[in-house]
């Protein structure tokens, strides 16, 4: 179910501003790839370009190619809506739909696309997704309550359930734990470990320990200065990156000397 992502010479622009320059990398299936780097270095922009979410911002465009199992995401024939159906995303701040119940939030991917399904199938999908997001036991008795009645950590797991309910090939997470307390963070990190058996996962994080704990491979982004484009400095297996990085800047950042 999971897919391999290959990025070749990707440049991302917001209007005239070049936000990210010349990225080439491979994101392996069934593994967790962490993206680290100082604020404003283009990690989020990059991860959002992997499912064409950055196009929601006016004036944003890319050059270069992103291949998902050999298919170019940015070829004119590709429909961004279909891309997003295969590559799910979890955001920094939990964003359940406030007008929907917990149940409806989980199957929002089907409901909003007006896919018809019978009650039994829907129930099954909701339970499976909530089990997958480690939330089922906490909410099974109050599925009809509003999604915003949950705590922040539960809301974030609800958002993960919503993202995996549509059974995507890839799951992208943009600082999924930055608004959460340590216990909720731990719950989500455990969840990432379980999810990696099935999905290709990309995670942006500011938390070095988190990158070290959850990821198999780590990519370090950096920026030369304000107004300059962000670049991929180094990418390797997480163990190598944290113990023996090749580039001095990576070592400085990881050991907290700057950034």
């Amino acid at each position, binding site marked *: 179910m999971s897919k391999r992502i290959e990025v070749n010479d990707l440049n991302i622009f917001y209007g005239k501003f070049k936000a990210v320059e010349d990225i080439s990398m491979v994101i392996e299936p069934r593994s967790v790839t962490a993206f680290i780097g100082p604020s404003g270095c283009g990690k989020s922009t990059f991860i959002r370009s992997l499912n064409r*979410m950055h196009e929601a911002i006016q004036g944003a465009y890319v050059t270069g190619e992103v291949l998902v199992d050999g298919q170019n995401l940015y070829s004119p024939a590709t429909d961004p809506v279909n891309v997003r159906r295969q590559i799910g995303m979890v*955001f920094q701040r939990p*964003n359940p*739909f406030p007008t929907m119940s917990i149940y409806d939030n989980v199957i*929002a991917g089907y409901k*909003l696309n*007006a896919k018809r399904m019978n009650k039994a199938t829907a129930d099954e999908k909701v339970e499976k997704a909530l089990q997958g997001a480690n939330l089922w036991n906490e909410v099974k008795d109050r599925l009809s309550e509003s999604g*915003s*009645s949950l705590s922040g950590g539960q809301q974030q797991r609800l958002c993960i359930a919503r*993202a995996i309910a549509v059974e995507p090939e890839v799951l992208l997470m943009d600082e999924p734990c930055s608004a959460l307390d340590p216990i909720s963070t731990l719950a989500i990190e455990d969840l990432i470990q379980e999810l990696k058996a099935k999905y290709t996962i990309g995670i942006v994080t500011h938390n070095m320990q988190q990158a070290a704990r959850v990821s198999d491979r780590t990519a370090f982004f950096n920026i030369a200065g304000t107004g300059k484009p962000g670049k991929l400095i180094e990418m390797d297996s997480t163990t190598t990156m944290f113990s023996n990085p090749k580039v001095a800047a990576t070592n400085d950042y990881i050991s907290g000397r700057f950034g």
Partner: protein
Amino acid sequence: MSVPRDERTVAGHTAVDRSAAPDSPENVTVRPDSSGLTPELFGTPEPSSPPERPADTGTGLGQSGKLPSALPPALLLLAAGVSAAVLLLFDTWSWTGTAALTALVYTVGIYVLARAVEGPRRAKDRFVTALVSIAFVLAMAPLVSLVWTVASRGAARFDLQFFTETMTGVVGEGGGAAHAIVGTLMITGLASLISVPIGIMAAIWLVEYGGGPLKRIITFLVDVMTGIPSIVAGLFAFALFSTLLGEPGHRSGIAGAMSLSVLMVPVVIRSCEEMLKLVPDELREASFALGVPRWRTITKVVLPTALAGIATGVTISIARIIGETAPLLVTMGFTVGFNFDMFGGRVATLPVFTYDQFVRRGLPPEAFVDRAWTAALTLIIIVMLLNALARLISYLFAPKTGR
């Protein structure tokens, strides 16, 4: 309505400032020898405030006397008594004079007392509180007076006959405004039917799709339209229908509804635009990330989230046009009986009914004036019901947050 946005940006700035602040003491402690840094850090606007603080906190922890809580009302009564007495003494007593003088005496009195007992900061607080309260009373007085006058004068003919009969064949007393009430509801309904879809869709375009110079031009035009004098809207609709149908002096309900729509559309656009802007982008992103197309995101996520606000905005825009007189006078004129045909002939409405009864008084004149007041009262009640409905809608449809 654009205030929340501004507040948010302002709050953002202050948050940035605060987060930047803790850095400075750290820098000082880490590098105490770098004397070049210190004056810069303390050369910020900070020094201007400390001199004021010692004055305030002169008594250790800033403890000072406190006026008893019963004092302000007592002082207010005293001020009223003194004002009335003074005015009586000079033989110039009046309600307004007493009220004005009371406000003045109380404001000065509370400031002086508080300054003596509680210190200058509390005194300033009391002074401003008094000013703000006076402004509130000033704002409320005309409203209360208006509702009271209309209610008391309109009560005379607020009977069953008024709501069941028309003015057909009535020359003196009796008669009613049933035709005008029905006319008002039909015309307003028709105007809403035209304006609400146009307004909401235009707002959706402005918020979700529009961009660049075209958006700026349209926003500007909408703002201009908000300020169109209602009589101009009336003349526009009148001229439009007269020309289109080649029928000089054309009068019809649809022409009236059209003129009201010209007034209503910009109000609907503006209020809906603000409500749609309040829907967090995160929800749109969440929907996009699930592979939901833009139009489905708008109809299934954005609109339901903003529904309460949109419903309130629409109701308020209806309340805004339901009392319009001038355009309806031009486009629909007036009639004494029912006219259910929206596409031909004159239609009566409550505001025009009020105007007509008041201006063309017959005999006995009181009967006409009474009908005018009752029609005005009915109109106010309809607007109040609409506002109550708006509150109910926003209560029922508001996203439940649980916390």
